[in-house]
């Protein structure tokens, strides 16, 4: 009887331990994903392991929809909102990887009217250049942090989006499509969380 009780106790403890272990693994996985995303935002790393969490079709659809949205802002000559969308296109392309990412990287300099050589130059940038440089080269995190605190609302809002401290500026009036919302929900692009790594 005692033996039976102690065995079931051991099983209970083991199962509890297993549960905790599982939670720990989940927690670490979650943190790892967030850390990866944080690094991807900050340094433009591609995220091959993350795309498995999303199906590529969703990512591809989202990218196309963002591309249309970008054209709308471009036609309205709304440069900052356009850049905010381009930044998201960049994130989605990185999540997707493969041919989409290659095509995106090829087009990016043309889209933001800045060549890759700009990344090599030492920059004391004005806000719009800082934003472009960050999207193109993942350069100037510190400047963006400073802009988020000191610049006027429009620049500061976009700077906050880029460093992961907030969502799209409200004044852009962006409504994400279902596929993009799915991307955001799946990869946990809760910007305030991301900024904590």
């Amino acid at each position, binding site marked *: 009887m005692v033996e039976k009780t102690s065995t079931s106790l051991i099983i209970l403890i083991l199962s509890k331990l297993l549960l905790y272990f599982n939670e720990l693994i989940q927690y670490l996985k979650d943190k790892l994903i967030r850390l990866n995303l944080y690094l991807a935002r900050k340094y433009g790393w591609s995220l091959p392991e993350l795309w498995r969490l999303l199906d590529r079709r969703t990512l591809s659809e989202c990218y196309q929809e963002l591309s249309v949205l970008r054209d709308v802002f471009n036609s309205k000559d709304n440069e900052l909102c356009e850049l905010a969308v381009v930044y998201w296109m960049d994130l989605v392309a990185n999540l997707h990887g493969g041919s989409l990412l290659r095509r995106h990287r090829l087009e990016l300099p043309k889209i933001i009217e800045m060549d890759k050589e700009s990344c090599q130059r030492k*920059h*004391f940038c*004005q806000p719009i*250049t800082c934003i472009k440089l960050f999207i193109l080269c993942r350069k100037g995190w510190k400047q963006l942090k*400073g*802009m988020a*605190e*000191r610049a006027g*609302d429009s620049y500061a809002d976009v700077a906050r989006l880029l460093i992961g401290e907030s969502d799209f500026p409200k004044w852009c009036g962006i409504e994400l499509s279902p596929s993009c919302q799915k991307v955001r929900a799946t990869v946990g692009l809760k910007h305030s969380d991301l900024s904590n790594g």
Partner: protein
Amino acid sequence: MGLRDSPEHRIYKLIRLPGLSESGMMGARDLNKYEVAKAVKRLLRSYGVESGYLSERPDLFAIKGKVPETLKDYFKELPVKSISEWTEFEYMYKYNNENKDKYGYGILRHPPYKCHKNNLQVKLLYETDQFLEKFIEIINHVDIGKYIEFVPQKLSENLSELFISRHDLKVVLISHIPENQRERVETLARAKLMSYREGVSRLQIIDGDTMLKINKNSYEYYLANLLSALYFKSGCVPFYIQTPEKYDFLHNAFYIGVALKKTSKGYVKGVATIMTGLGEIIAQVDTDQHHILRGDAMEFGEAEMKKFVEIIKEHIESYKHKLGVKPPLVVVIRTRRFKDDEWKVLKGSFYRFWRRPIGEDAILLVMSLYKTKWNIGEGMATFDGDDKHGVWLLQPQKVNYAVQLVYRSTGYSTRLPAAAYLYLRALDFVSLTHSRTGIPPVKYAYNYLRWRNIAEQW
């Protein structure tokens, strides 16, 4: 054809010395450069040609019409091209929420670029009910309720209300004060001086008589200027100037303007600054009494220069404190020339101190700004010099005469001085008038000295 349509002056550089016997002077080589310039001017007049020479560069002549055929070999005409062709400097006024406009008058339609808080409390002091009614009529053309809340109060005879309450800003609607009412003007000047907080005057004085003349056709210009000044004096930044990427330096710079005022005790020099970086613009007048420089001459004396260097150093530290870095570009502007020894002191003491943490990219630029009476054409410019020193003549659109910009620099680009002038001119928060030629921070420093002179607080 009106003055604005037709350029009247061509700019020539004297490249060889003519025989000056016709002007009554022989042996031009024995004369100093100013005497030569005067003699050449007389010579040209003897041919019936009106001319003037640049005080800082007496080898450059502005000539009405053309150089006579017989004197052609002694002169070289400087090319006059459009400002944008010379500099490729184009700019856009940016307001809040990505609103933009070609002009500062966009402030009528768009919210200010940056405000530290909404609902600014503005005390509206009015002398007569008529002034108040007119003010409300004008201001009601725009919806500024989100940013500014006016609290009206009648102004007493002794103007005591100017000295009490600590609103974000006080606006005074007052009738024009004749010069013989010295006491009243002095009271106003004392109130103005007292109103300076964080380097910005928090008192806007409006001439009620002028305001009453504003009609339906002219209110837009008046109101835009008023709005921009109100926002600025309440602590907001009315607009940001976006420029081509090649001028990014201008947005990470420390601009120091020196103004000059002749007083009963000699010349006083005051300082105002503009700090830009990370999308921030901070414009301030240095109201520290110990930073008012005094001397017998318009230029800095030795002791003044030493003090001026220390003032710049203090402000650079303040820039670092506010923006976290030291600026890669420092621009010193005044309306007097920089003598050789002044430039040497600035470069030798200040530049070395500040350049160390910045490195190779650090640029020091000093500029002297003068008005001229020469019309080279609207939107046109000409230039003579290199990246270290030279002179620009610039005549922006809707300006009647060119301004002369003499500069010295540690070297970057010949275009930088012209671009810096145009940038600062665009960044003037207290005047949006197209024909303006003065620039902040010199203008801000001068206004402060002017009030201080009226109040005789030296």
